[in-house]
């Protein structure tokens, strides 16, 4: 019962948003018409497609080089290539803009050489570059996993039939990678559509920024709500298309036993361009942002840094993310138990419902909660509780997913054994099931913390007045060009993210 109530609560904001939009009727349609919505949809889709294509073009060769070739320093590149994932898009956008923009560091370096003014990267190119550089690991990681599981004997067989290496890549390897590429590309596409940080700093007018502007500047709530509903619908359509296109895949080893160790492809002369490619990605996606942050931090430390404000913001980030992680993990346990142990139409519906947040951008959930808070739960509007609730709605799927996976590994026989030893169902839950899935719940909490600490749009909209987190500090400083002020909070945010990340990787 508890699980059902929680899942229903998670789906409530979306339902409410729908009611508001539909209730406004023709007014909502007028609002969509006024905002040149068609153009907005096309712009957002163009950015999504461009980023997904570019991220695939970076991720697939990178995965192949680090898994299947004798690339020098393969292990190091493996770690380095995945790291950009921890950099939030708004920090990435800020770093790229302040380095490569017209008033940026590159300009300072190049000016003595006679370069008067670098072209601006703001707008589409900047948003495209930023989102590509910080989302390609979503494709890299599943493709790497798929490559590692690919049976080398398939390749040997194709080579033995007289095919060339290049031909084998296109006819054997790539078809086996398409499910992984598809899964990663879906994550990238959903990320781009729901991203607010990078597009707002790069001043690219997208769905999310338009919603935010409408809401903040003109308090045009019907306009914002109808755009948000449309964005949610767009994401659901993408998810639906993906589910439809996914065929039942049976691409696995047919023979029993373990696969032979993979033979590495010798790169020969090609290792220099390969190294150059890896280095270029690492420099742009990792060295450049960190270097820029370090540079601005050093410059700001010589001036006056608002240490007290930064410490307060860091405290708030820890507080709200910690509460969200705790709440999500506590909610995840009953939902996972219900979904795994009491499987039926009802529990499947509850589990699906708890995944709603997965398909919704932060700004949509935030807006839905604003409506809910101002009209229904008035006492909760602009309280910390509301923000934590928004995070739970958004990130509950992460906690449920990990907890569920852990519970799936616990044999139901263990719980039956406990019953036969004289314990009631509730006592078994308390003494056996919960202790056995606690490690999953902790990992889920770490994952939620890691994601919540970086969250921007919901925090901007729902945080109590005067409640600043590291994310909002960084965004407020850098979106108006105060690059120095954003540097120290950015480094602090990356440092805070490192702890749960360590917890998560130590588990594997």
């Amino acid at each position, binding site marked *: 019962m508890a699980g059902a109530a929680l899942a229903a609560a998670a789906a409530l904001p979306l339902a409410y948003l729908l009611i508001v939009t539909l209730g406004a009727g023709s007014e909502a349609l007028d609002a969509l018409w006024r905002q040149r919505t068609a153009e907005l949809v096309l712009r957002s889709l163009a950015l999504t497609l461009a980023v997904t294509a570019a991220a695939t073009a970076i991720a697939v060769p990178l995965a192949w080089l680090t898994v299947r070739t004798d690339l020098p320093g393969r292990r190091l590149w493996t770690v380095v290539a995945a790291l950009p994932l921890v950099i939030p898009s708004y920090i990435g956008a800020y770093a790229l803009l302040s380095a490569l923009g017209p008033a940026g560091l590159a300009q300072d370096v190049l000016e003595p050489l006679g370069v008067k003014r670098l072209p601006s990267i703001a707008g589409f190119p900047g948003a495209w570059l930023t989102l590509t550089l910080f989302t390609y690991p979503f494709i890299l990681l599943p493709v790497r996993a798929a490559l590692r599981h690919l049976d080398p004997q398939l390749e040997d067989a194709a080579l033995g039939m007289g095919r060339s290496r290049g031909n084998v890549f296109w006819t054997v390897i790539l078809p086996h990678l398409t499910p992984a590429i598809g899964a990663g590309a879906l994550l990238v596409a959903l990320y781009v559509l729901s991203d607010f940080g990078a597009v707002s700093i790069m001043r690219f007018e997208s769905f999310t920024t338009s919603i935010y502007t409408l809401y903040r500047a003109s308090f045009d709530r019907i306009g914002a709500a109808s755009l948000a509903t449309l964005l949610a619908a767009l994401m659901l359509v993408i998810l639906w298309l993906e589910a439809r296109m996914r065929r039942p895949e049976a691409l696995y080893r047919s023979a029993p036993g373990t696969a032979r160790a993979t033979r590495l492809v010798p790169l020969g002369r090609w290792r220099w361009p390969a190294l150059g490619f890896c280095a270029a990605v690492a420099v742009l996606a990792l060295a450049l942002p960190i270097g820029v942050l370090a540079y601005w931090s050093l410059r700001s430390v010589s001036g006056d840094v608002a240490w007290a404000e930064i410490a307060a913001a860091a405290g708030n980030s820890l507080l709200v993310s910690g509460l969200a992680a705790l709440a999500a993990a506590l909610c995840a346990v009953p939902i996972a138990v219900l979904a795994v142990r009491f499987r039926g139409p009802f529990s499947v519906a509850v589990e699906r419902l708890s995944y709603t947040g997965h398909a919704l951008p932060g700004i949509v959930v935030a807006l839905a909660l604003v409506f809910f808070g101002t009209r229904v739960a008035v006492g909760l509007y602009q309280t910390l509780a509301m923000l934590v609730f928004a995070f739970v709605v958004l990130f509950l799927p992460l906690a449920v997913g990990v907890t569920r996976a852990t519970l799936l590994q616990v044999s139901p*026989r263990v719980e039956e*054994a406990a019953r*036969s030893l004289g314990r009631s169902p509730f006592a078994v839950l308390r003494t056996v099931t919960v202790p056995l899935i606690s490690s999953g719940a902790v990992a889920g909490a770490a994952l939620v913390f890691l994601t919540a600490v970086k969250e921007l749009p919901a925090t901007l909209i729902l945080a109590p007045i005067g409640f600043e987190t590291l994310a909002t500090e960084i965004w407020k400083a850098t979106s108006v060009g105060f690059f120095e002020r954003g540097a120290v909070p950015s480094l602090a945010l990356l440092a805070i993210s490192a702890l749960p990340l360590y917890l998560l990787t130590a588990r594997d």
Partner: protein
Amino acid sequence: MSSITCVDLRKSFGDVRAVDGFSLSLEEGTTAVLLGPSGCGRTTTLRLIAGFERPESGTIAVGGRTLAGPGVFVPPEKRRIGVVFQDYALFPHYDVAGNVAYGLGRGADGDRVREVLDLVGLGAVADRSVNELSGGQQQRVALARALAPAPELILLDEPFSNLDASLRAKVRDEVREILDAQGMTSIFVTHDQEEALSVADVVAVVGDGRVVQVGTPEEVYSRPANRWVAGFLGEVEILPGIARDGNVSCDLGTVSRHSDLVGEVDVMIRPESLAVDTIAPTSHEAQPAIVVSRRFYGHDQMLELRLESGRIVRARRLGFPAWHPGDRVRVWIDGPADVLVRD
């Protein structure tokens, strides 16, 4: 340590009738085995007795107490029935002693834990994590855990199937000894006929969700109720025969049977009941045959023999002397042979 009676148990999953009229009655202290092929409903029956599943109809009574029946369903935690699972289902978050103490409830008696662990020979590893133990040790922890609360009855679902073949016979004997020492009524479930025959006082052969035959291991092996039971318990030759005046004649000679069967019957002979030699003892009625093929297994050999009628029969003999295809031999019945009414 109680008797158990199951009457006409039924349980379906969707359209599949897993248990379909299962009845069985066991005396106190009996070691019984439910033997049957996979999918015959034996594990579901065990789960009905343990209380993990609710029967659609039928009754289960242990020691005179009705556990399931019309309007009655006692939950598993109130049945006092111990269960040992195929995968042992130990609690990975407790040590060995913790696993055994679990069923003793709060304020568990340390003496009882030690006593049971000593009984299964695991006193020395009481504070080890269960993950550090070998398969055989884990199995004994599972048994000790089930025995600790002194249940009325203990159920064991394929308890030896996860053990190496070399260990299995030894562990089987140990488990049987421990159960006997406690005078425990127990029900094993297995698909392995050798295991069933060697461990049981009573074998219940299960097919299609009901008991096809109950008896001592010797009875069900040498006098199976029908062809299916005969074939399931081991290799068998079934020859057509004619019964008359208490004797049955078939291609292998005459089998004497004190029964009033008349007419067409089946004669069932296990391959080890056929003797083979170049010269037959005069006391037996032997038939000439030719060795068609031979498979050598080390301790024994299986011969295929063609009788004069053209019928092929199999004979299992000791590994030596070796016979070869083409050898002309004599074959006669030297052991139990059973006569079945033709199905």
